[in-house]
């Protein structure tokens, strides 16, 4: 799979986690592709943590000085009819209060307990947590969407080594290789992508996986 196919597989599978009317927050990058894969009849409400409920799909535009509506990455955006603009305290009250049905986030590391690290690489990259800590701690479901490895190095680990974004917050991990559910017993391989063998998935994963008798298919 090339990068584009890989992203499509992940975003396409992620879209199946959503049902009509869900309130959804999308991290920057890959997560923004998810709405493009929603089946007809499923409309979700995009929450942008800078203060938009009912944000429209991403605009194909660069940074502008004049935008009165921007997304959480600072890029020009729009609000749909039936949407609302809110202040930052209200916006994060919505997140912390469990009113966001699903938060899709990337990860640098995620572990079998559902711990998430995606905001800092000490000494190398210190961008700040932005809204990620609140989203990880507060959203009703936290779903990690990411490439399975970092150029071959596992990102799904026994235990995160980087500083955490939130502890035990991740519910589901979707990669190009499969779908993994965080359970009290450990990380359950729910679905696998046909393009990979079980052994390949195991080899690319840094922690033990719970393997059910029947593993679902990630793509049909």
């Amino acid at each position, binding site marked *: 799979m090339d990068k584009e196919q890989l992203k499509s597989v992940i975003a396409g599978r992620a879209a199946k986690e959503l049902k009509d009317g869900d309130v959804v927050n999308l991290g920057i990058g890959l997560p923004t592709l998810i709405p493009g894969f929603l089946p007809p009849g499923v409309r979700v409400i995009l929450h*942008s*943590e*800078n*203060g*938009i409920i009912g944000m429209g799909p991403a605009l194909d535009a660069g*940074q502008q*000085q*004049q*935008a*009165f*509506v*921007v997304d959480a*990455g*600072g890029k020009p*955006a729009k*609000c749909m009819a039936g949407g609302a*603009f*809110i*202040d*930052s*305290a209200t*916006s*994060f*009250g919505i*997140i*912390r209060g469990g009113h966001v049905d699903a938060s899709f986030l990337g990860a640098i590391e995620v572990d079998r307990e559902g711990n998430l690290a995606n905001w*800092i690489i000490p000494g190398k*990259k*210190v*961008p*700040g*947590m*932005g*809204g*990620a*800590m*609140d989203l990880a*701690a*507060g959203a009703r479901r936290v779903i990690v969407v990411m490439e399975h490895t970092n150029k071959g190095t596992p990102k799904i680990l026994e235990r995160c080594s980087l*500083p*955490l*974004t*939130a*502890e*035990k917050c991740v519910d589901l991990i979707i990669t190009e290789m499969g779908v993994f559910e965080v359970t009290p017993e450990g990380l359950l391989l729910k679905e696998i992508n046909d393009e990979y063998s079980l052994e390949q998935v195991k080899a690319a994963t840094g922690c033990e996986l719970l393997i059910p008798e029947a593993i679902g298919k990630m793509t049909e």
Partner: protein
Amino acid sequence: MAKLLSLEQAARMIPDGASVMVGGFMGCGSPHRLIDAIVTKGVRGLTVYCNDAGWPGHGVARLITAGLVKTLNATHVGLNPEVAALMASGGLEVRLIPQGTMAEQIRAGGNGTGGVLTPTGIGTMAAEGRQVVDVDGKRFLLEKPIRADFAIISGYQVDHTGNIWYKGSTRNFNPLMATAADTVIVEADTLVEDGCIEPENVVTPGIFIDYIVKGGAW
């Protein structure tokens, strides 16, 4: 009953070493003209509270690039590479705060409560040095109120009383900061007569505003 000032008059109010809240999110809803006036006037050693560091040449970034800022309290600085360089050279101290926590801390600074009890940051670096309060068996970080000497914010419509209506997502931190500083200055995109903003549609009541500067349309 807010008072009209010129941009220059407003810029002169802010002394060296002041703490200043700056509204906006990646520059959207920031008081750009007033920021320029402050850069032109020059001031040293500011402690700034702003969601982010903007991007180079835009928003709060202009204060940082001009070397006016000693300490930046923000949630995210990753889209401004100059900040990383300044941090590395020791020219800027950055304190990172989760965005929802910062929003609520500023609100607390303005509303007389003793702080915020948030689940955000439990088990992370953000919890370092924080008091943990147990409420019915669940743990929360106690994050203290944030106040500043000045808040400089932006409003799309501002009436003479100081009431503000925000366009689009320019709202973000502006209404919160308006409540939490000793002196609050709003840059008005448009200055309107009292009554033009329906009382139901006022977002920031004028009682929070001390001074208005005219920004004009972008």
